């Protein structure tokens, strides 16, 4: 099984022991606040589907291409999140781009080259690519 690499992590909070519902709720709020802050700073959230269906058709390479493209363009603030399969196995590899105050956009059947274009067109130039 291919190793799923983490590219970056925004959440720096340490896991801690939870002894009551109250502590769980407080911790939840802490994480939320921290994430809202991170999100605001970056303005963009990129999520790659990393289920076995995605990984089998190259999600790992997509992840690396996006990460590389972000680094090359100096967009270090933007983090890439992993998630599992969303059920659209036929469309893998799949990436979701969510820019603040805009609807989320899914890009399916990606190749590393297309993924780089998505970064350039959608994230840098704010132009949604209609079909790829």
């Amino acid at each position: 099984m291919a190793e799923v690499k983490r590219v970056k992590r925004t959440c720096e909070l340490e896991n801690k022991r939870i002894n009551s519902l109250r502590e769980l709720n407080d911790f939840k709020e802490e994480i939320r606040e921290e994430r809202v802050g991170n999100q605001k700073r970056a303005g963009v959230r990129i999520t790659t589907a990393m289920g076995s269906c995605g990984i089998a058709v190259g999600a790992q390479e997509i992840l690396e291409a996006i990460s590389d493209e972000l680094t090359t363009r100096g967009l270090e603030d933007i983090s890439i999140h992993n998630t599992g399969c969303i059920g659209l196995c036929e469309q893998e590899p799949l990436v979701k781009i969510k820019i603040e105050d805009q609807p989320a956009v899914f890009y399916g059947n990606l190749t590393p080259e297309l993924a780089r274009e998505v970064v350039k067109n959608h994230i840098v130039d704010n132009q949604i690519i209609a079909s790829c």
Partner: protein
Amino acid sequence: MRNCGHIDPENIKDYITRDGYQALGTVVTELKPIEVIEIIEQSGLRGRGGAGFPTGLKWKFTHQAAGKEKYVVANADEGEPGTSKDRLIMEGDPHSLLEAMAIAGYAIGANTGYIYIRGEYQLAIKRLKIAIAQAKEMGLLGENLFDSGFNFEIKIREGAGAYVCGEETALLKSIEGERGEPQVKPPYPTNEGLWGQPTLINNVETLANIAVIIREGAEWFNEIGTEGCPGTKVFTLSGDVENEGIIELPMGTPLRRIIEGFGGGMVDDKEFKVAQSGGSSGGCMPKELLDTPMDYDSLAEIGMTLGSGALLVMDETHCIVDIAKCLMQFFKHESCGKCVPCREGNKRLYNRLDKISKGEGELEDLERLRDLADTMSKTALCGLGQMAPTSIYTTLKYFKDEYLTHIEDNNCTTGSCRGLVDLEVQDKRGGKDYGNNN
């Protein structure tokens, strides 16, 4: 599947931000075990592993059973061909399974849970292990959860690929380290399961509903789906549809809507011929039944099954006799051989279908197929042998003409049965017909 696609399955914090472990916290600090069971009973949740048995009732039986120790087992074997919903849940939202198992443990009085998972699911296994480690680190699994005095630990056991090991009694034997063969029921696992102790065994999808029912309430759950089958069902759609994949829909969604809506219709606009619902042991649904609501009761009424939610859609190019033969080949191979009706029955069903597919069939064969199917469904030891002939029953009912064409006209209109097709090789390059020349 509410969290799938929204959370990072390898980060417990993502699950917590979506109200993860709230239900467990509430249950162990504020509710009595019997109150938890009542909520599940009122929700009307039915097992998603295939049979649709009321989950609350199963929990109650296990709660009431006396034993030295009790166990919770998650059936993650997912051996049914064409089904991968449990994989999606475990790869995408592993904590929802862990949280539910701990809740179940509290409700029935168990401190240990086992996840019996299909060995091929290496990514799911890896993510479950990460999830268990993170939950332990935070005290959400292990000792004294939420300072309530309740302990719960979860272990993973990998299956080795036998279909029959998804059957609950065979599965338990396999965990015990014995040969994975079904046992005579009763006693049911709720009374005598793992090592003879009361054991609750539920499917992954069933369990994935638990935490959200506790959080949102039984009434909320009741409002989704149909009266007899509340909630949602996760379908694995595959075959000749434009979009294959996995989709969660309210129970009772008509088949047509699933195929045309999510599936995007048939590939290349070919004609729909048949959909097998519920996996290999499921019924074959013809065009006339496209508007059937997909829930346990509506399907059972017409001799079909919802099973695991597998939907294999086939177009006009597939031959019914060939499909039935393929299925019997599967069962012939997967029968564990412990009981005669299944071991011999599947072989005989296969042989007769093979004979028909070669143009050697007689009308009498159809009677024999039905007789044998009756014997198997009445006398086989477990669901494997009892349900194996479902495709025979349903194809004989809805596609009898196609069997007759094979028998009476020695013809397979789709060209799938090789024994009935005259092949002619033509040389396209020179326009010559190889059959006529030297």
